[in-house]
């Protein structure tokens, strides 16, 4: 049986994960301007808030579902190899 505290990320757990990623240099760097980082977080939080409550968190992480529907601008974007 799952205990409720396992589903809700606590600040300490989150801090431990952040520190662990930093210490082990996990994570390919994706550099964006500060304003864009904030916008991106907002987009993810909005996506998270539309999920059913039981699906919003996974261990200490929050869950986001990013729409990738066909988008004209995407097909023509300057990306990349």
């Amino acid at each position, binding site marked *: 049986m799952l205990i409720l505290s396992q589903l809700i990320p606590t600040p300490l757990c989150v801090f431990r994960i952040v520190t662990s990623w930093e210490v082990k240099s996990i994570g390919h760097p*994706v550099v964006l301007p500060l304003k864009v980082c904030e916008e991106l977080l907002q987009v993810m939080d909005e996506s998270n808030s539309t999920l059913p409550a039981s699906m919003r968190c996974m261990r200490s*992480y929050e869950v986001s579902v990013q729409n*990738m529907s066909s*988008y004209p601008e995407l097909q023509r974007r*300057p990306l990349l*190899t």
Partner: protein
Amino acid sequence: MDTLRAKETYSFHCQGCTTRLLEDRVFKRVLPLPNGNWNAIVDDWCCHPDPFANKKLLPRAEDCLLGDTFVLLARDSNCNQTLTEEVTSAGAADSQDTKKPCHRLALISCASCSLVLGEAVAQGTLKLYITQVVVRPAVGDGKLDASLNRSAFLERTVAARLLDLSNSLSSFHFSVQTPDGKVFLLLWVLNGDSIIAAVPEKSVGEESSISPLASLSPSLRATRALKLLYISCSNARASIQQRE
């Protein structure tokens, strides 16, 4: 997937206001840049001193260099009318962290709507982020149809980029950082082939009354989605500091 190609003509538009920023750019060379942190492993490959130490990879006049989240281009004379430049101190706000040097960033913004587009990384070189500009082949009048929904553009652009990177690197952990190297967000790509269907709440409530034809309407179509886990570093630090 379309990519920028050499010897084709492109125009660059501001994502915020669709103003054309760079007109009729033709590149002789379009080259990918090495991935982030490439400098750190040069020592493993060279038996002599690092030949790239303290050297930036910069484009020549008709080059376009492609990074993970940006393009590097040479500045031309038209840029002075469409772009503005402002020098800021990126590390100044974080006065507690005295170990890190204060980075000076020359921010490049759209002259029409002031959206930050990128940085001037060296004299005559523009770094434009893919989330801030729209690139179109320069055909017809070259105008964009309409102003694009910002959050939808950002969501789809970043999601597609994360999926590309995770496919090419076989790495599913990403740390979203600001240009001064401060980690802002940790991302873990779980699933690139999820399918989501957005159904209006009203339709769910009246499930029994939906006709088979109504279920085929565009608003009920399933779309591809990227499922990811994330942690905001700024929120985590703030929570810990509050507790202390």
